[in-house]
């Protein structure tokens, strides 16, 4: 039955001849975008595990899926959130162009004053009639300069404690009140942007969830971000593989001391890989484990140590850099470019997507059950909280 639907789609829309956008549109309409979504919204109301099957068949037929590297926020975070919490109108309006990648999405969450403390968002949204007006500044937004839409968390009430005064919106990035500036990083590149919002208007119809429910909605979305972790990786995937290959090819960089250092990190990377593989097996049988947060700690530590070691092993090369010119790359490849870039870029691994400090808190409190930090802002109206 499902197989039949796929065959029909492939027969009527030959991937070799129709454009990707057209094919994806047809795939969406056939309910083969996310088969666990309801009919009419890109799905067929089937159990989630059938998705993998469809992906496999599509791959076999050489049929395209949406490019995750171009619309990661849209596909990974926005679609499940809109499906779970959005209105029928939102689902009808946004899911299809999101899936076909005609509309790229970005995320307006972090702010200069709300990094680790994400709920401290100060960008404010004020309702007048059925239109919200938004003013504030967001930061660390990737892809903002070619995004058509954004998800936004803004403060709609300063009289209540910080988590209670947030609301979640869908924003048109072509609003004239939006200014996107590249945010240049330590590497010389600008992978990310700062986004300034000055009198940006949002119809109330583009609010997701109730006013004041923004934290809950945003958390739903963030949880979806974790799905990627736990997929099994090959041995020597990642930085260790790059370094091991260099070692094998270049006898001049070898030394006894470096050998033991290299083997130390090789083993660290391997045990993290094994841990990820086990987590994948657990997920497969429906027993998710709490290892994910801790594994992200390991990935960051290893990326930073291994790239640092790689620089030391070949000083004549490590003293140089490939290119400091300011670029705005379309996607991030941690393993791309030269060793100096990889070293600098890896510094972000312990900050982005939950800093290592925050993750250690999470592991200590949620996994080990140790007492939480005292919250000085608990129960205090946002306007009275020290910032």
């Amino acid at each position: 039955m499902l197989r039949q639907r796929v065959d029909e789609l492939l027969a009527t829309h030959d991937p070799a001849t129709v454009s990707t956008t057209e094919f994806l549109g047809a795939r969406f309409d056939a309910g083969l975008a996310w088969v666990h979504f309801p009919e009419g919204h890109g799905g067929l109301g089937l159990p989630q595990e059938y998705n993998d099957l469809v992906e496999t068949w599509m791959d076999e037929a050489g049929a395209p899926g949406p490019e995750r590297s171009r619309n990661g926020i849209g596909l990974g975070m926005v679609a499940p959130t809109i499906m779970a919490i959005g209105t029928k109108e939102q689902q009808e309006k946004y899911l299809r162009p999101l899936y076909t990648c005609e509309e790229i999405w970005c995320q307006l969450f972090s702010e200069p004053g709300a990094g680790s403390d994400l709920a401290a968002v100060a960008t404010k949204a004020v309702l007048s009639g059925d239109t919200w007006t938004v003013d504030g500044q967001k930061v660390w937004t990737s892809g903002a300069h070619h995004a058509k839409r954004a998800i936004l968390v803004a403060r709609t009430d300063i009289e209540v404690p910080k988590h209670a005064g947030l609301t979640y919106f869908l924003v048109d990035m072509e609003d004239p009140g939006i200014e996107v500036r590249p945010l240049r990083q330590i590497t010389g590149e600008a992978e990310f942007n700062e986004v300034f919002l000055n009198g940006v208007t949002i119809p109330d119809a583009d609010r997701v969830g109730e006013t004041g429910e923004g934290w809950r909605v945003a958390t739903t979305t963030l949880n979806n971000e974790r799905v990627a972790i736990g997929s099994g990786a090959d041995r020597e995937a990642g930085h260790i593989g790059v370094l091991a290959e260099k070692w094998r090819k270049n006898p001049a960089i070898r030394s006894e001391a470096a050998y033991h250092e290299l083997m130390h990190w090789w083993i660290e990377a391997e045990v993290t890989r094994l841990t990820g593989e086990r987590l994948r097996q657990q997920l497969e049988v429906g027993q998710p484990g709490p290892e994910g947060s801790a594994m992200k700690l390991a990935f960051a530590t290893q990326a930073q140590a291994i790239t640092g070691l790689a620089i030391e092993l070949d000083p004549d090369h490590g003293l140089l850099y490939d290119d400091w010119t300011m670029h705005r790359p379309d996607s991030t490849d941690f393993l791309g470019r030269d060793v100096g870039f990889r070293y600098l870029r890896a510094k972000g691994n312990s900050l982005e997507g939950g800093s290592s400090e925050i993750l250690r808190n999470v592991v200590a409190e949620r996994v080990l059950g140790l007492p939480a930090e005292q919250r000085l802002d608990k129960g205090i109206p946002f306007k009275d909280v020290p910032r």
Partner: protein
Amino acid sequence: MTNLLYTDIEDALRESVRGAMERHLDPHSTTGIYDEPKPWESKAWQSLTEELGVAGLLVPEDSGGVGAGPREAAVVLEEIGRAVAPVPYLTSSVIATQVLLQLGESEHIASLAAGETTAALVLPWAARPGHWSPAQGTDPVKPVAGAVGADLLLIPVADAGGFQLQLVKAADTTVDPLVSFDMTRPLAAVTLASGEVLATGEEAQRAVEAGLQAGAALLASEQYGLARSCLETTVDYVKNRIQFARPIGSFQAIKHRLADLYLEVTQAGAAARYAAAALADDDPDKAVAISVAQAYCSDVAVHAAEEAVQLHGGNGMTWEYPVHLYLKRAKSSQLALGTPEKHRQDLGPLVNITT
């Protein structure tokens, strides 16, 4: 990739072994071994062998065993590590048994599988797969684990006649107990004596090597069990120890250290499980899996025990608290069957990384 999860049968096995350890061992009597050495705690061993029959896990049914395998034995060792149990499971039921299995020996294997007799491979306890030498000359071999209290000794010897694996009854030679850093797995000096020749030449070599490989692969599970127990005990302690009017486990620096330790212990579990699985599957990656597991789990166990001592504060330094038993077992096990440094050394060429 091979399955890294525990089966329901293994979960049940774990429950049984844990129950037996809890019934028959208590930290105070285990500590007593340091003052009054004895080869092992007989009630716990009796329960493992007579009641649960786990000494025969590696042995096929037609040889008098249970016909399970390394995955199941690893679960038993996790629980033994958890309890710092003073029983000769690793030395007799894993290493010596594996040596005899490799040889297709039939006379003694059934009584080993039943736990009626115990045996020890007579090599220095730090010997590791691929790097060991048979006894030569007349000096006693030391320090040997599992020999104190063993009935049978498997002694690799080299003389003018070549390389032999001899089986010597303990009654026919001298086993001198040594004051050991870890008295829960006491060491001894074993005097050479001639006995029955079990095998010679390459066949004997392969048998010894198989015993050491099984030992190194499964020691990792014992180390993991020990490390995990240290983590759990310490988390429990810092939740309840009050200083400055709050549980010390509410101090962020302690929380973060325990989060890091959780990561290490979790990863040690995966590494140990992979080594057990690779041994069970006779996987081509077996040697890699063993070196990775030994290099990693040895250090994690020591680190977990050291953190346990420190975070138990003064109590961790006392003879009365059982924490010291874990530290001593962990540190000795780090040396057993090859130090992490040696395993890192061995691993490189296996994955095409050399100097």
